[in-house]
């Protein structure tokens, strides 16, 4: 089975070569993206088959010289293969339609399959070299894709920060794995599993893994590249980056911390929980204040990554106390939410892409009323928005509900730090969920509802059939995962058990409609019944209305408060929608300031409102770092201008110093 995966990788390489050759032709485009769809489907199938199957390993004479490359397909890998397969298939399908709008296909096609392949390779890698090789290749390929529209404003900066952070994460992971490998270089994961590092080493490895994987996943405070890079790339690539690549980072974290490292101390869980909660709230707040549709989605990815990491942190906490069922529940919730996020975030990015190529506009202040121009897209995106806003009966709610259930197991924990941290996290998560609802009401409302705010929005067109198909597919996925959570929980069970040692009671076996994570008396949820009830009662009420109420319906202009023919500009804008939130949270967190300028009567100038936001993370960490480096560079640069004699002075001083050192040493 693992051979299939490797073949899929090879196929991707072939596709990328083909793409480099025939990138400009429409046929080439269709073949490459179609090929990626097929490859993804194969990978998806393999994952589904392999998750319950026994572990398969394979060693090839490539990779680290003299040692060779080890590959392994276990339950966790299989689960993430499913994720990649889903995301890849969807993105490929969407791209088959959407990529016809691409101006520079020859900059996308050669790298897209490599990107996909590298993600697959990360998941099946079984030694440090192959793992990091694939990890950094993933960064490099996605960087090339981010640079596609390099002549657009800001893309180069985005690419720069992205690759720099990516290489940073790679190097940090390199150190972590190096420490795990030990002095005599046991680079294979098999060796690391049996070698138990000293406590200090374990702690260090954990911190490094958190920084390294976190900065690829987009965890605050190492998330800054994400909202820059994801929007800059072509839409289907953004979908893949947000929907899948961040999950690969999650995989890296789980693989190192749960599988290779043994059991990290409880304070590690505390850190993860803290960062997770902060990421969730900060991410969604940023999203809520964002005007650019794709950046909004990118920030909401930071939010969801935070939620996922809260789940992982809970699992670590329970694991540190050997409470395996709890750990299993928490990790299941995290993996489930990761899967869901792949589904709805890809869907939303497809939607954003459809809007972008349909109207040429991604600033929601200039959109509106697209529900009339792009009805199918609107339906799909609406489902996505409801899913990401964690509304029943869709999948977003199911996974967040599981996370809350895991949090309610907290009393079993002895450590006070965790006891106090978890309720706070719960509040943060609830806040994030509510803000996400607000955020996506805003996003959907401003984009699809109301009246068009620009001619671009007026002339928007529905995307091609491929793109619509991709969106509908994922909408259906969101619904299915929402109504049948039990199936997915059972599906993820082998991976969870492999990582935590515990497992949840099988859901479908007990009762195929309801999810009972711990005990029926404790809590239960049935997405399918929920859906049925809502459907039935909607139908009933509609029936009753049509039975008893009048059917008369008049069309008329909306209530304009007595201002005749008010233009679309009087609509509530995205900025004004976010204003209450900005005022409540932003003033503290982003030092948000607004200055309104209303001219005197008779004055002809337009009224204006200026608002400024500061990103505390950027101002607090990255700007100072950049300043330090550039200051050092400036200080050292004069050494370029010295004269021969001064260089000789260096040599002389070095010589004398070394001789001196030698005498002292003897």
């Amino acid at each position, binding site marked *: 089975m693992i051979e299939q995966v490797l073949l899929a990788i090879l196929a991707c390489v072939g596709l990328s070569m083909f793409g480099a050759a025939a990138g400009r032709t429409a046929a080439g485009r269709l073949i490459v993206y179609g090929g990626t769809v097929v490859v993804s489907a194969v990978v998806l199938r393999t994952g589904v088959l392999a998750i319950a199957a026994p572990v398969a390993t394979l060693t090839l004479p490539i990779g680290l010289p003299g040692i060779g490359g080890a590959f392994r397909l276990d339950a966790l890998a299989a689960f993430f293969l499913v994720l990649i397969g889903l995301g890849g298939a969807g993105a490929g399908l969407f791209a088959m339609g959407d990529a016809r709008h691409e101006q520079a296909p020859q900059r996308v096609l050669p790298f897209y399959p490599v990107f996909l392949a590298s993600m697959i390779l990360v998941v099946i890698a079984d030694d440090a070299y192959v793992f990091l090789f694939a990890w950094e290749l993933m960064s490099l390929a996605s960087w090339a894709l981010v640079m596609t529209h390099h002549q657009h404003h800001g893309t180069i900066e985005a690419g720069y920060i992205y690759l720099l952070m990516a290489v940073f994460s790679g190097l940090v992971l390199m150190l972590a794995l190096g420490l795990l490998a030990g002095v005599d270089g046991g680079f294979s994961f098999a060796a690391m599993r049996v070698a138990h590092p000293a406590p200090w080493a374990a702690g260090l490895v954990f911190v490094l893994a958190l920084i390294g994987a976190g900065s690829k996943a987009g965890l605050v405070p190492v998330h800054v590249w994400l909202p820059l890079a994801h929007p800059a790339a072509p839409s289907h690539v953004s979908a893949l980056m947000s929907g899948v690549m961040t999950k690969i980072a999650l995989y890296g974290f789980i693989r190192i911390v749960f599988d290779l490292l043994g059991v990290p101390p409880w304070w590690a869980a505390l850190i993860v929980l803290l960062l997770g909660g902060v990421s969730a709230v900060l991410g969604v707040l940023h999203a809520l204040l964002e005007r650019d549709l794709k950046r909004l989605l990118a920030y909401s990815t930071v939010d969801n990554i935070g939620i996922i990491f809260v789940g992982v942190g809970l699992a670590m906490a329970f694991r540190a106390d050997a409470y395996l069922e709890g750990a299993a529940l928490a990790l299941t919730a995290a993996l489930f939410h990761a899967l869901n996020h792949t589904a709805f975030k890809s869907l939303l990015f497809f939607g954003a892409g459809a809007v972008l190529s349909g109207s040429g506009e991604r600033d929601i202040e200039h959109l509106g009323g697209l529900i009339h121009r792009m009805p199918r897209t609107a339906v799909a995106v609406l489902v996505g928005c409801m899913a990401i806003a964690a509304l029943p009966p869709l999948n977003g709610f199911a996974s967040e509900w599981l996370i809350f259930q895991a949090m309610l197991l907290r009393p079993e924990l002895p450590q006070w730090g965790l006891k106090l941290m978890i309720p706070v996290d719960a509040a943060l998560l609830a806040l994030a969920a509510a803000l996400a609802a607000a955020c996506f009401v805003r996003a959907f409302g401003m984009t699809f509802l109301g009246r068009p705010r620009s001619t671009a929005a007026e002339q928007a067109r529905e995307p091609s059939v491929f793109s619509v198909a991709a969106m509908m597919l994922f909408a259906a996925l969101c619904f299915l995962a929402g109504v049948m959570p039990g199936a997915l929980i059972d599906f993820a069970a082998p991976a969870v058990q492999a990582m935590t040692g515990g497992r949840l009671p099988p859901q479908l076996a007990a009762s195929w409609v309801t999810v009972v994570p711990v005990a029926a008396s404790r809590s239960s949820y049935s997405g399918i019944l929920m859906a049925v009830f809502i459907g039935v009662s909607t139908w009933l009420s509609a029936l009753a209305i049509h039975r008893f109420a009048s059917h008369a319906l008049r069309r008329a202009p909306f209530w304009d408060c007595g201002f005749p023919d008010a233009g679309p500009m009087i609509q509530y804008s995205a900025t004004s929608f976010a204003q209450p939130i900005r005022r409540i949270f932003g003033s503290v967190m982003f030092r948000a300031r607004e200055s309104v300028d209303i001219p005197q009567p008779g004055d002809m100038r337009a009224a204006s409102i200026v608002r400024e936001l500061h990103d505390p993370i950027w101002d607090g960490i990255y700007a100072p770092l950049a300043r330090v480096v550039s200051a050092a560079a400036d200080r050292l*640069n*004069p050494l*370029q*201008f*010295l*004269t*021969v*004699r*001064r260089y*000789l*002075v260096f*040599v*002389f001083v070095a*010589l*004398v110093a070394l*001789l*001196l050192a*030698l*005498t002292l040493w*003897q």
Partner: protein
Amino acid sequence: MHGMEFDVAHMLAGLLVLVSFMMLYQDRLYALLNVLALHAGILALSVAWQAFIQDAPHLYITAAIALGIKAILIPWALRRMVFRMGLHREIETVVGIGLTMLVGMALVALSVEVMLPVTAHADPVTREDLALALSVVLIGMLMMVTRRNAVSQVVGFLSMENGIILAAAGAHGMPLVVEISIAFSILVALIVIGVFLFRIRERFDTVDIGALEPFGGGRE
């Protein structure tokens, strides 16, 4: 190893160090060139003496080279150059002469200190010789880095290299000494020619970067 031979060799080497110090406190170019000639002369003597006591005839060639090229030819060439190119005659120093001398003392101390632990079965001659040679080398380098104009730097390089030849000659039965000394003479000749051709006057070292503008450093 006969005591007297040993003392003579030793005396000559010490003399060389002494002359190096004399170089350090010269502040006139011509005088410096004279001292250089003296330096090379003494080197020639000590090499010749080594040739005698090791009865290694090929060392006489080295001695001859030292005498012919370093003690006569090069000083003469440099003198002409100073005359032709109208370099101004006094040497601009970076740090004061006195301080330079002190540093020189420290360097001698250092080189003795460094060579001290060399165990006895590397015979004493070598050890002492090496200590002195090393101090000559270091002082030569000190000269190069504390003098601002090209000629005196060339002189510094020459004295440094004299130290090396001294060490080489002192090393009993060391092969290739002649070849090396020849190679070195060529090198020095090239440097002198370079100074002459490239018209590298005080520009060899200037205090302000501005003067280097069109040059390598300035490019950046």
